[in-house]
């Protein structure tokens, strides 16, 4: 046998290739089985977080991790969403609810063992509201006296803002007006405290991009501490030794996966690589529903899917036409078929049962009435219809709904509707410029209160995007409702505003969201709620439970 160097190279080449292909095919234990034994939760988190700085980031995936690492003054009960003690042991209202005094738990510690003090909060809120920080969620603190002015640079002395550290464990907050949902906001990460010394060690107070949130640098005060952060791979947090309520924390560790691709996420769940998925692909839901002891969990969610209407552009500049469109829309069928019952038909902007508020149902699917209104608007049986375009951002779910609605309007009203999808940022630009006729939109509540939905449509509302403007409505939302003495009175005013809105119909509500997850049978203590707000400290893993079909 004679071999030249070339032959040898080829030989090596093929051997290497074979070796690669034959790399141990044996699969070890799944993540879930291993995690159940070791107390590690494998959590599908939807996307790579932008960052972990509570005053910088804005998204949902960030929320999950930050709320594992940090804790607010108050936290929401995962079942009732009512506030319960967090860093603050208790709080007191005074001055008719304008002043709130938070009493901090002296046992609340940073992960370096230092105590969480009231002045940490003052410093952090200064940071959150400072015009230099560029905190996109700064408006969460606007109920504070002078907060908005401070952010807008109208005043520069933070002492004028309504927050004061009376001593290490007492924080006094002064509000512009009684704000029933303010304590709830303490569970939003933009109001969290950060550890001032750590931040200053890496840069200025207002710097957005210092490495203070990295593993080894970050100091946090939540139930978990950060131990690994691999970009686009995983984030690992471990139980904190210094957390005041550490005895209640059952998990040793949580691994967050940036599961951008929902199909892959569901498959990871299926092969027991995840305990929990962020979402469930629509088409998989029927199969999961039919499983015995289904891991599929669906719950109402504080968000509304609706169509914005440009009230200044014909043919939808006529309220009758808008109402005709809305009434010709068979939401029940849409929800039943296209959405596979994963949503609830909506007839108002505010989701029902928003902390006890039930919006009035002012219209229904009524093609007869819709045709009549359309005729009144000048297009009997669709004659003379100049065309209408529905704008949505590029996403499968939006496309499905738009395609179905397009056909419903065609069928009921005999009008031609075209669809137009745009890439996300282009779509945002179009919506902000109100450069559309009808555009898809969704709103997820920041906090559980109808105000969060209804104040979208005040004249000055940055998210109004419809040209809808009614001074009476503005007055209702901005002045009369906040001054309401009782919850009932307040809700009555909201209902009044809701009625005004549905009379003019600058938006067409379509459905109320639900949250949809796959949760492994071994997971306990992950409750569903309206905010899809989890508190990982209550989660326990029960070893031995397997997915149906995996338990051989």
């Amino acid at each position: 046998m004679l071999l030249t160097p070339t032959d040898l190279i080829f030989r090596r080449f093929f051997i290497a290739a074979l070796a690669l292909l034959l790399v141990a095919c044996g699969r070890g234990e799944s993540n879930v089985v291993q995690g159940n034994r070791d107390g590690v939760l494998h959590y599908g988190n939807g996307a790579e977080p932008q960052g972990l700085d509570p005053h910088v980031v804005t998204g949902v995936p960030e929320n999950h991790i930050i709320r594992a690492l940090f804790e607010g003054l108050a936290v929401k009960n995962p079942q009732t969403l009512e506030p319960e003690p967090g860093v603050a042991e208790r709080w007191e209202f005074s001055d008719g609810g304008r002043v709130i005094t938070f009493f901090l738990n002296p046992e609340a510690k940073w992960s370096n063992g230092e105590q969480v003090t009231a002045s940490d909060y003052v410093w952090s809120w200064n940071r959150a509201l400072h015009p230099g920080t560029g905190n996109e969620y700064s408006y969460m603190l606007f109920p504070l006296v002078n907060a908005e002015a401070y952010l807008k640079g109208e005043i520069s002395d933070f002492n004028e803002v309504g927050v004061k550290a009376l001593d290490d464990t007492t924080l006094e907050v002064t509000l512009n007006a009684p704000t029933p949902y303010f304590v709830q906001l303490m569970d939003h990460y933009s109001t969290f405290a950060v550890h001032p010394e750590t931040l200053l060690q890496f840069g200025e107070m207002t710097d957005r991009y210092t490495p203070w949130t990295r593993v080894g640098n970050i100091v946090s005060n939540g139930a978990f501490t950060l131990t690994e952060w691999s970009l686009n791979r995983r984030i690992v947090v471990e139980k904190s030794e210094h957390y005041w309520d550490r005895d209640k924390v059952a998990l040793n560790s949580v691994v967050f996966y940036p599961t951008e691709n929902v199909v892959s996420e569901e498959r990871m769940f299926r092969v027991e690589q995840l305990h929990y998925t962020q979402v469930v692909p629509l088409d998989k839901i029927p199969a999961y529903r039919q499983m015995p002891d289904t891991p599929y969990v669906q719950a109402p969610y504080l968000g509304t899917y609706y169509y914005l209407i440009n009230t200044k552009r014909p043919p939808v500049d006529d309220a009758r036409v808008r109402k005709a469109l809305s009434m010709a829309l068979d939401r029940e069928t849409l929800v039943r078929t296209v959405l596979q019952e994963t949503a609830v038909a909506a007839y108002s902007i505010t989701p029902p049962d928003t902390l006890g508020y039930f919006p009035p149902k002012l219209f229904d699917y009524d093609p007869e009435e819709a045709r009549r209104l359309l005729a009144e608007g000048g297009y009997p049986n669709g004659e003379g219809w100049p065309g209408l375009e529905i704008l949505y951002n590029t996403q499968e779910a939006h496309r499905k709904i738009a395609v179905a609605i397009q056909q419903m309007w065609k069928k009921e009203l005999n009008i031609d509707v075209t669809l137009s999808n745009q890439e996300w940022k282009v779509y945002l630009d179009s919506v902000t410029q109100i450069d559309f006729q009808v555009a898809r939109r969704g709103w997820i509540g920041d906090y559980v209160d109808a105000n969060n939905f209804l104040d979208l449509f005040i004249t000055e509302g940055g998210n109004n995007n419809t040209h809808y403007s009614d001074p009476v409505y503005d007055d209702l939302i901005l002045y009369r409702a906040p001054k309401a003495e009782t919850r009932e009175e307040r809700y009555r005013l909201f209902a009044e505003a809701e009625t005004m809105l549905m009379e003019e119909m600058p938006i067409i509500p379509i459905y109320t969201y639900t949250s949809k997850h796959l949760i492994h049978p071994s997971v306990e203590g992950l409750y569903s709620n309206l905010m899809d707000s989890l508190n990982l400290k209550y989660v326990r893993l029960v070893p031995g439970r397997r997915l149906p079909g995996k338990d051989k």
Partner: protein
Amino acid sequence: MLRFMLIRILQALPVIFVVITATFFLVRSAPGGPFDQEKVVIPEVKKALEAQYKLDLPLHEQYFAYLGDLAQGDLGPSFKYPGRSVNEILFSGLPVTAELGFYALLIALCIGVTAGVFASLRPNTAQDYIPMSLAMIGICMPSFLLGPLLVLVFGIWLDWLPITGWGDIPGDKILPSITLGSAYAAYIARLSRAGMLEILSQDYIRTARAKGLPEWLVVTRHALRGGLIPVIAFLGPAFAGLLAGSFVVETIFQIPGLGRFYVQAAFNRDYTMILGTTVFLSTLIVFFNLVSDITAAWLNPRLRAQFKGGSR
């Protein structure tokens, strides 16, 4: 040799420069900015954000500032991922994508060359038609289809291989590499078939046979080297293309690579990130083209002599 490389690099510099400039102004003229969100940002906050990233300066100043930073190797901070520099993100993703690309090419080479050579040995027979038909399908099978299909079969039905991750579980690199490599395998199969057919009709192959060499030695020792030169020439651009094109595979298999950043940066209007990845990739494209040109030349003794300079 050195001179040749130097000339090529010098030629590449203006290309990269124009790419940077064009990209810079292109991305700025695209609608929507990095800080646009579904929930409208308070104007004051937006202003503060823009100030932090120097977006409030006139465009040309930003441009020159960027060039200045770039000259020092600083690609700037990411807009989408505050706290991370573009450099850092690139270098976290690059090894993964490079490894993925390497395996994909390796698989592509193994499958492609084998199929192509086999097909070329008996042209216009079943031994030719079958691998070449598969290659046609491979070329046109989009990875968004092949990836999930492989996952379904090997990951879920057969339960042989992990379906996501990169370097977490043994074997999790196999499916993504195959998915990414298949299209290239198909191209390589076609290229090597054509190259081999060309070489096998050469006179010197007849010489080799006349020496009494067995057929496999004729093929491996005499035909393969020349027949694979087109493949080698294809590898450089292909590898650069793999880096840019691995987005879909990285998303399907949740791989922490560069491709995801490249594509998402465009959607996020993460200006520095777009520029960084573009600069990086165009440099890589130039580099790999150079490498593959040199390799192809090196394999060809005639060209190799030219590199050594002068000798005729």
